[in-house]
């Protein structure tokens, strides 16, 4: 089972790239706020993402980290907000595609 903040290997990312779109996000883009369900699952490919609690940065996420899959599949709001720290390339895993992939 996928867990949030799981790191993927280069090979796994390369395989996922065949199926999922990688998009560029501008600096300071709020991906999702605290207590929200992420709109899509995400895999950071290039750049940095800040993890926030009450607007304060708790940690920085680096490439190949997978974000939000558990929350999006189970409709669980994230306890932490996520914001793009530097212009980043992020793989977008839509809920409908994840469900198809996991055969839910």
């Amino acid at each position: 089972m996928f867990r949030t903040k799981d790191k993927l290997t280069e090979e796994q990312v390369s395989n996922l790239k065949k199926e999922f779109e990688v998009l560029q996000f501008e600096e300071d883009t709020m991906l999702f706020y605290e207590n929200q369900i992420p709109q899509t699952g995400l895999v950071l490919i290039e750049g940095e993402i800040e993890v926030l609690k009450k607007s304060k940065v708790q940690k920085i996420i680096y490439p190949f980290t997978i974000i939000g899959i558990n929350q999006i599949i189970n409709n669980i709001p994230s306890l932490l907000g996520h914001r793009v720290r530097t212009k980043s390339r992020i793989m977008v895993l839509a809920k409908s595609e994840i469900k198809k992939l996991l055969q839910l």
Partner: protein
Amino acid sequence: MTKSFKPFSCEHCKYKDQGIFCDLKPENLAAIGENKVMNVFKKGQTVFFQGNPPLGLYCINSGKIKLSKIGPEGKESIIRIAGPGDVLGHRSLFCNEKFTATATVIEDSAVCFIDKKFIYHAIEKDPSISLHLIEKLSRDMGKAEDRAASLAQKSVRERLAELLLMLKSSYGVQEKNRWRLDIKLTREEMASMIGTANETIIRFISEFRELGMIEQEGKIIYIVDENQLTETANLTY
């Protein structure tokens, strides 16, 4: 551990009969409900950002959201205010271009998100969605044309009267012999919507009040004399 959140189903959405999904078969509407993500955004939070790629479509279930563009000099222009039943992000999504505006919540809002792949799949399955989208885009285009004409041909005084009437038609609540505008906009936001300065708005609001067209209680505006306001708005052409 945070509890699972049961999203509001599309079948029970009170706007389902007026949106782009109004002609969907119950099973197709239920599939959208299963694949959407519903979130509550607080006032001041951003639903999407100008310059970022669209990931899907947004349906507003409750609240109010302003769409604004930031110009090259960093000045904000409000394009429109969206409310319950409105769809956002469709233009950029189907043009496959980056968002040309930012959507910021001005009153706490519940927003449903449907991802791009699923929307395309839903359209293939039920083309009625495309017809309603065309209808919506045509209406949006008509409004944009009216707005461009208004900015080019009307005075600020006329444009302010027009804005107040537009807000009345979307957010007016009748209270005895006057209409309360059930939307909290700052004077700066109103100025941005009609392309003028803050000071000019304040001056004309004061003039409209003195002429008995409107009343003000704190930040709330009431429309008292709609006929006089319509005449001032010069809506005849």
